[in-house]
């Protein structure tokens, strides 16, 4: 591709009649972008909240009025010298002629220097209301398929409100989200590396953002037979799989073959119900030769109470249903009610739009309306906005609390208009026995407003990116918000849930991370995400239907073993991604295998024996195993709080903890039963493997195990050791 000329290719498409009155150099459209490009207003320099050495600019130049005051009017106007522009402090500092902590940022003979000097010489005019506004920028091309080790130049065009277009390629700022696949330099020159994959380049100019999406196919391999690979993967081109197939083909990636039945039933039982399949379930499934056995399995699993418990646990995390740090015995009633409500909702397959609406618009007491408990954890303007945006819209809008979002279109006005939806959330009653009152009643206050922190303007309730809601004084803005959010054409809602569920089952969202949707973090397979979201909306927000679609996809059924044709790929779901069992599921699985339930410390009551970790109402149940394995503290709506990072303590917990020892040595546990039965070691080993791994032992495994068992004189000790060893294997600890 040819590279466009550099020096200001000004495309004067429609010059306005009054153009002669417009200053040659615009502060907003020309000066500020230069400051941004040279990082003068970056968060590490003058753009941070406290400024730098007494000079503060708005972060990334989103507030040109503020910047003008800072640059021209503050410090007795010493930063610009209209009479001798070259002697202006801002130019002297930027060029390093006087000491500058940020070093030399602009060359004196550069175009940027000339623009700044011309602006000062022309009287350093400020932003004007009547000057053309930058409405958007475009990147050309906006997507492309690039070979490995190739390059492309991007053309950035600014579009102004007077119809004018301008090449601003030299003045933009560029950043790649995957530099190891495709990188970009300061002149919008994109270069791909030696490996394939997907990448995006964020282009920023004058407060506007555009994105280039690059696809770099892996080098073609002569030994790849795509059709046989797709067949082995059981990919169905007539289903949603077509979007996966298209992606694989685009990237020259072949999927791994489908997983075997044993692996699949273990995987899906864990993923839907947080529970291991029993040996009987495994053998029955494997022996079942009917074509619909997979869908029947899914249906069965979705009906199980463990499914409701497992997903209620997930929602309790997202809804921050926490009991810790409030140090209130009575907090447990509220957390139990909210988790139970989530569990009931999931058990009843409550439509997702209704589920979310009930949370967002909750009023009353926790007894009458358990979703009001959400408002115990979420109680400030910041928490309302960020929790709702992240949990239900997949948007991380936190940045816009203090400044315009640097990588998105969200402004502070968007943030506080969104917050205004919650300005009339009233609280009363309850008792202040802890950090926050317990058992409050949530109601619609008669008044309450949110003001823009910078301008002081009272913000009207508004959806993200939309116009103000039309409300009467007796309307609860949250109802309008819920209605907007759950409408079929909402651009975020269904996609976020579809992506969240895809991430749950596939280990990685189509948008990744799952709750960081933005134009600069595009989905790896937009067509797939669109199709999933559409399917979800058309089903009436039927979450189980969504789960059936996802678990029925070829991607979910693939083996986790990589092949030479997908080894380096992590984005196209060409193999099942291994992941460690979550803390609660792992603990429950150990209890299940060893047939010894965990005793959970309670308070104020006592959890009945047999209570599972996935049944716990909140995180304030002290058990170190769960904390060591990453149980979240539920202080944000981000699922990323749940950690699956490895740690030495985890290994110690598995091999050395009292809890594991207790379960291995319990008089009425599985080990005791094994050691007391009359079955042969071979029969027992087969059952042990089915319980632990959901598969028969391989012959060499069986042989090794039997030899070990026979070598150990103490039968109980022998089985204890065998189980102890198997529970510490990756095959047990991981879902694969």
């Amino acid at each position, binding site marked *: 591709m040819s590279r466009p000329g550099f020096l200001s290719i000004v495309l004067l498409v429609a010059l306005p009649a009054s153009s002669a009155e417009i200053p040659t150099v615009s502060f907003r459209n020309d000066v500020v972008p230069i400051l941004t490009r040279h990082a003068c207003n970056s968060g590490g320099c003058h753009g941070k909240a406290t400024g730098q050495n007494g000079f503060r600019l708005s972060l990334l130049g989103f507030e040109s009025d503020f910047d003008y005051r800072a640059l021209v009017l503050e410090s007795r106007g010493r930063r610009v010298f209209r009479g001798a522009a070259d002697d202006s402090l801002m130019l002297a500092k930027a060029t390093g002629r006087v000491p500058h902590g940020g070093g030399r940022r602009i060359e004196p003979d550069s175009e940027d220097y000339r623009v700044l000097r011309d602006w000062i010489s022309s009287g350093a005019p400020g932003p004007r209301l009547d000057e053309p506004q930058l409405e958007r920028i475009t990147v050309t091309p906006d997507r492309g398929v690039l070979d490995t080790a190739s390059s492309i130049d991007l053309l950035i065009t600014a579009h102004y409100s007077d119809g004018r277009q301008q090449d601003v390629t030299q003045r933009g700022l560029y950043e790649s989200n995957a530099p190891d696949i495709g990188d970009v330099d300061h002149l919008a020159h994109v270069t791909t590396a030696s490996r394939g994959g997907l990448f995006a380049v964020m282009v920023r100019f004058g407060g506007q953002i555009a994105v280039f999406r690059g696809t770099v196919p892996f080098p073609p391999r002569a030994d790849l037979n795509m059709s046989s690979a797709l067949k082995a993967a059981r990919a169905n081109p007539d289903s949603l799989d077509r979007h996966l197939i298209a992606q694989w083909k685009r990237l020259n990636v072949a999927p791994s073959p489908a997983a075997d039945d044993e692996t699949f039933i273990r995987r899906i039982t864990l993923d839907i119900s947080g529970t291991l399949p029993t040996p009987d379930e495994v053998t029955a499934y494997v022996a079942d030769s009917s074509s619909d056995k997979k869908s029947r399995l899914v249906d069965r699993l979705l009906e199980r109470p463990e499914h409701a418990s497992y997903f209620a646990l997930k929602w309790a995390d997202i809804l921050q249903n926490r009991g810790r740090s409030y140090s209130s015995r*009575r907090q447990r*009633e509220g957390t139990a009610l909210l988790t139970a409500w989530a569990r009931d909702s999931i058990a009843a397959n409550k439509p997702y739009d209704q589920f979310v609406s009930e949370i967002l618009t909750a*009023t009353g007491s926790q007894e009458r309306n358990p979703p009001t408990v959400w408002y115990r954890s979420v109680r400030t303007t910041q928490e309302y906005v960020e929790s709702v945006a992240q949990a239900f819209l997949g948007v991380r809008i936190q940045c816009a609390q203090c400044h315009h979002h640097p990588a998105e279109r969200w402004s502070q006005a968007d943030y506080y208009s969104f917050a205004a939806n919650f300005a009339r959330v009233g609280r009363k*009653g309850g008792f202040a026995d802890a950090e926050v009152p*317990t058992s409050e009643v949530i109601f619609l*206050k008669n008044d309450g407003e949110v003001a823009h922190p910078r301008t002081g303007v009272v913000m009207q309730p508004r959806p993200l990116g939309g116009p103000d809601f039309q409300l009467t004084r007796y309307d*609860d803005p949250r109802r309008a918000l819920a209605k907007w959010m759950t409408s079929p054409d909402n651009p975020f809602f269904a996609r976020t849930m579809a992506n969240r569920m895809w991430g749950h089952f596939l280990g990685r969202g189509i948008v990744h991370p799952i709750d960081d949707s933005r134009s600069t973090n595009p989905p790896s397979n937009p067509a797939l995400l669109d199709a999933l979201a559409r399917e979800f909306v058309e089903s009436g927000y039927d979450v189980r239907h969504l789960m059936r679609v996802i678990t029925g996809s070829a991607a979910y059924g693939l083996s986790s073993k990589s092949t030479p044709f997908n080894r380096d790929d992590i984005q196209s779901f060409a193999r099942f991604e291994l992941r460690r069992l979550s803390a609660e599921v792992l603990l429950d699985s150990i209890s299940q295998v060893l047939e010894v339930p965990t005793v959970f410390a309670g308070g*104020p009551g*006592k*959890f009945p024996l047999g209570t599972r970790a996935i049944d716990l109402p909140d995180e304030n149940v002290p058990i170190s195993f769960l904390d060591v394995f990453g149980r979240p503290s539920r202080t944000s709506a981000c699922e990323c709080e749940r950690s699956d990072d490895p740690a030495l303590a985890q290994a110690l917990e598995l091999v050395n903890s009292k809890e594991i020892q207790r379960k291995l040595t319990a008089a009425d546990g599985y080990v005791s039963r094994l050691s007391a039965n009359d079955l042969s070691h071979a029969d027992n080993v087969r059952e042990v493997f089915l319980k632990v791994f959901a598969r028969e032992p391989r012959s060499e495994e069986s042989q090794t195990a039997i030899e070990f068992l026979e070598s150990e004189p103490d039968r109980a000790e022998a089985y204890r050791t065998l189980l102890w060893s198997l529970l510490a294997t990756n095959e047990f600890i991981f879902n694969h």
Partner: protein
Amino acid sequence: MIRIRPVSTPNVGMDFWTLCVRQQPRPQVSHGNALSRSSASRQVAVPLLVSAILLGNCAAFAAQPNPVLNNVFPAGGQAGTSVDVTIAGSGLTNVSELRCSHPAITCETENGKLFRLTIPADVPNGHYDLCAVTGNGLSSVRSFIVRHLKEQSEADANDTLDAASAVSLDSVTNGRIEKAGDVDHFAVEAKRGQRVVIECHAKRIDSKLRAVLEVYDSAGRRLAVNRGFFGIDPLISFDVPVDGVYRVRVFDLVYSGSADHIYRLSIDTGPRVAFAVPAFVQRGATSRVKLYGWNLSNESTDSDAGRFETVDVDITPPATGVSASPFRLGPPQIETTGFAYHYPGSHAPIRIGLSDVPVTRAVVDNHSPPAAQPISIPAEVSGQLVTSGELDWFKLEARRGEVLWVDAFGERIGAPVDLDVTILDASAERELARFTDQRQNMGGIRFPSAHSDPSGRWLVPADGQYCVLVRSLIGSSDDDPRQVYRLSVRREEPDFDLAVVPRRDDPAALNIPRGGRAIVDVLAFRRRGLTGAIRVSARNLPVGVECPDVWLGPGVNRVPLVVTAAERVDDFTGQLELEGHAASAGTKQARGGTVVRKGEPTGWSRLTDQIGMSIAGEAAIRITADGHGMRKHDLYGDLQVRHSPGSMLDVAVQVDRREIDYQAPVTITGVGLPSVIRNQKATIPAGRSSGYVSFYLPPTLAVGQYTIVIQGQTTVPTGPPDGKGVRKTESVTIFTNPVTFSVQPAAFIVDLDQDAPQRIHRGEVLQVKYSARRVNGFLSKIHTELFAPDEVRGIRGRGVTFVGQTNSGNIQIIANDDAPLGRQPFLRLFAVGVLEDEAVYHGSCFLPIEIVE
């Protein structure tokens, strides 16, 4: 423990305390010449000493234990049967019987541990109170439910679904979550098409259980769950899908459990009424009411009924009076009046409210200002906010200067709403008044009476039409026909209700020791502009029991009420009947209130039908108050005290100990003071038997009749001296008889100059500047002296007289060389206003002057 019996004296008919008081002259408020304390002590010592000698000098009078009933099991029974009941609690010694608020329910016991209650067949279904008659008096109450269904008690081992206890359909099971983590299961056989209603009574029978109900099919699949329908008590309406055995699981939400976690589980297919629309009807007028519930009719006839069935019935309420109501009511419901309607065959009665004017039903399409429904004053409107966010609009005509009282009932009639009433102009654009929560909690934690229903006063600004908007600030996301309300718009028609509640945050009955007193609080719930005094009187008291009238002064909402028992009064176990009378609102009977369980963060109390009272034990000490002693004045002789704003209330307190050889100081302070009166504390030292406490009646105190009580704190011995002569003691809180005083209009207000000196040296002479601001047109002479209720010690004041229009001056104060150091309690400037040489008006202010070296 050895107990001393009442002293036998030859004075037949005269009790111990009477004897004491006769022997000991009442302390008199004198001017600088108080009665010699030592002589008073000597006089009182005689009979006590005699009694001590007679009884071997080993008396012990520990405070009577408070009998508290923690649970009754089973907490109900079937009419027409007898039921064996066990009880548990504290202070329950020598229980002779259980007594029910329904008089026909009788009790027998052989061992004082198991009680057989016989419930005649004609006892209506309903909620009653049960208490124990113990050696320590009456216990606090517990709920007891009467039903016409068969009853059974929970079997022991039913902790798993597979071990579910079989129970029959149409029965009530009494169970208990007896330990933490306990889960109970019951199996019931039902047939396809039956609508089975499973209801758990727990909180409604004073249980600690926070119940959760679940229903499982025979395959172990959970079919239904509920965690709260009537408040936190759950109910499941279950349509049986196929013939079979279904299991019901009961457990505590947070897996708590104890002997007090009792419950009643009813599983039946009979008619059940949940609520009615309208929820209230006009007295004496036959009205058509729609009942909502289950198994009422074959099919629902109302599109708004949702999950409920409905049936229309004609109800004729009583024209006057209200009989005892078999309902469990919370403190806020004291302001509601209702009667029991029993739908034929229904498991329980439903409470229908009563109105003294016709009831208007809200139309279904009044959800916008143009569709506002006209109502006229007085208006009593029954409405229903079926959908969440629904607005009901009304319009009314009113005249300038009219005072209207708006009162809406939602929470108080059991509806899941938080009502808000707004009055707007005719265009519905401008809000003129808004009424929201009635959050004032007069009863505090002992009787939490706050609620979310709005009420308030509105002065009509101009002749014309106004809009009234009713809405709920909470609501379910689904349509809910239970969201009913009553809107009352009335002119100023004063009204009130009275509740009698324990003085402390304890479940307790009113047990009066012989020769002693017991105290309760009377709360007044004033409505529609009632601000004047309310007089509370007891009726039908047994012989030997006194309960002087008490007054809730203007604007006062709480007054202590004291019941005194004579020394040799007969045993009595019954109830205290109280009624209140207000000049503009007539007479009302007081309701009882009880603390259900103490220690709840926001309180847990309820109303009771009766105010239980008994005579129990003997008092170790008694204090007596007199707020009307004469004042001796050097110039004007003995003066009858006239109380007015800006004057003093002096209360003389007499202490009478049963054991005179034990002496301890008694700290006295006021109880039940109107909020504008600052409390004071004084100490009657050990060895003295009388003292004073004085209160300044501020100028802002409204004219009227008030009652206060003096509380004393001291120790009493609980046993004989040990080998070293040391006695075990316990702290006791005791109360005097009530002191009622009339506050009359003031003639002047005495005030110290704010720069007046606060110290005087021995031998020093000070000029203290003060004023006597004349009010209410008083022009005559005002004479001022120094005064203290017992004696002015060590200082003298030269009296000052203002004549004509004079209203300020100096009083000269001289400290003697041997004046006692420190402050003298209750020292004051005492002024009398003189009319024709008669000292008629009194006014005082404290003189906080300290004598120093």
